[in-house]
């Protein structure tokens, strides 16, 4: 039976959802151990056990949450010896991808990043990755062992299967020289009223809005709909809105009931983060924009005119009912 190690990321002591998503797939593929490093690991182990982890490896050293990547890399490199698992799964999240990258660099094994799915075929690991603007899917085979695969958030639905994990405290094994990139402060900005990843409706804006002074049109529609505002990478890069709003490959993955894309052309960078939405509405001046090809409803027109009218229409309906 295949042996799989799931890297369960902790965010300041709390289990990040990606770990449970990875377990939902991993437990179908073989026998699963999870590793939860830093304070809060033992508490996380209870949840990880209910989601199918047989054993959870923990260490409460605060260095794991104070420093980027290196302490976790040291610990993982030590704990997978002498018998590395067949597969190590990470989430394709900012923190996990750095640990995965360093671990793969240290082991010299390479990795498969940005995957949507993973399985064993003829005893080796294969993973599926969006390719060529998301129009294609490429299947990669991992030739090295352990195979390291990074899975996009929200690729799998977490579900409990019951069960209790054996909790094993492992050595921190942090190297002398690994406490270097230190997190000295954390600041919150662009705090949304409704969490973008959990919103039932997301209204996102892009370059087609013309300028940062028009983004309020997106926010106002999101607010009357009880949803959250999002943004394309283009306008985050341009400094119109904070990164916290970015939907897409380098941003958040969302799966709302309705996704409204206003003035967004639909580059793969964006669409991989919202393609799983139940309904997609695109508002764009260009009928040939790629976003139109994945939209359930594409409205060819000026977002600056349509957004405020839509906001008024929703308000009127709310008052009428």
């Amino acid at each position, binding site marked *: 039976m295949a042996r799989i190690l799931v890297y369960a990321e902790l965010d300041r002591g709390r289990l990040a959802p990606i770990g449970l998503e990875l377990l939902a797939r991993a437990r179908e593929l073989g026998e699963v151990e999870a590793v939860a490093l830093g304070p809060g690991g033992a508490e996380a182990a209870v949840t990880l056990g209910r989601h199918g982890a047989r054993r959870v490896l923990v260490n409460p050293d605060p260095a794991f949450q104070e420093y980027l990547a290196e302490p976790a890399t040291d610990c993982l490199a030590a704990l997978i010896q002498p018998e590395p698992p067949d597969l190590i799964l990470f989430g394709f999240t900012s923190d996990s991808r750095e640990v995965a*990258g360093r671990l793969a660099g240290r082991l010299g094994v390479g*990795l498969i990043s940005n995957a949507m799915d993973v399985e064993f075929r003829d005893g080796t690991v294969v993973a599926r990755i969006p390719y060529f603007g998301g129009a294609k899917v*490429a299947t990669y085979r991992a030739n090295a062992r352990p195979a390291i695969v990074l899975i996009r958030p929200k690729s799998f639905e977490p579900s409990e299967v019951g069960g209790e994990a054996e909790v094993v405290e492992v050595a921190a094994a942090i190297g002398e020289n690994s406490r270097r*990139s230190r*997190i000295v402060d954390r*600041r919150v900005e662009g705090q949304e009223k409704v969490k973008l990843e959990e919103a039932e409706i997301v209204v996102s804006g892009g370059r087609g809005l013309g300028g940062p002074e028009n983004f309020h049109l997106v926010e106002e529609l999101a607010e009357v709909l009880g949803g959250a505002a999002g943004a394309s990478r283009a306008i985050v890069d341009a400094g119109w809105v904070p990164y916290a709003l970015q939907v897409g490959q380098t941003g958040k993955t969302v799966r709302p009931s309705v996704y409204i894309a206003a003035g967004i052309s639909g*580059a793969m960078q964006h669409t991989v983060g919202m393609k799983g939405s139940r*309904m997609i509405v695109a508002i764009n001046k260009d009928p040939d924009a790629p976003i139109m090809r994945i939209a359930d409803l*594409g409205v060819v027109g000026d977002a600056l005119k349509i957004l405020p009218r839509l906001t008024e229409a929703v308000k009127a309906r709310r008052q009428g009912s």
Partner: protein
Amino acid sequence: MKIVVTVKQVPDPNSPQRLDADNTIARDGDVVLDPGDACGVEIGLRLKEAHGGEVVLVSMGPERAREAIRKALSMGADRAVLVTDPALEGADVNTTARALAAAIGSESPDLVVCATESYDGSTGMVPPMLAEVLGLPQLTFANHVEVNGSTVSVHRQTEDGYQVVEAPMPALVAVTAGIAEPRYASLRGIMAARNKEVRTVGVADLGLEVPAPAETVEGVEDAPSRQQGEIVEDDGASGVERIMALLQAAKVI
């Protein structure tokens, strides 16, 4: 301060791309300096302007990548190293990181600046692998960089804001595309770039062995596509009506 900036030539994101018969992205189209790397070059130049020193570009790719290197040199970088070798064609991320690390390591920089991810690959794995192979701390997703004495400090983007992260130099910083608007090359810069050194090195020069790829592509198929829905022209009211009908059908209003 010696600053190495990694740069890559990529297919022009603004021109249409097509696949070759073997499902690899056709490389004969328009190519540009990766827009993310242009931001890295900008940060390198600003740090040099503030602290003095030298900005050295390191790139890996075919001979043709000289075009992108020239662009970055004309922005103001001092010189460049191009890692190019037929043995590196189709290199996996592990080999890419090791080849870049070998070229960068021989420069002994104080700071290595990378883009968070390339425009064409977008897997973002080279910076952490590179940091590991070079034995450097990494400061990533940086949308603000400062150097104070022997310490580098960044604002690292997070889901709800940012972290302030600092590390002793030498270090590797991966910057986001939003960090700074890349400058335009001046005419003088373009002229000067013609005389700047672009040294090419191959795997033998770097003492590298290129192993068999750690990952291989098994196949490429069409993605399960969403059905294209309806496209309507907004005539002043119809667009809003149709969207309202959809929101009601989806039971969200």
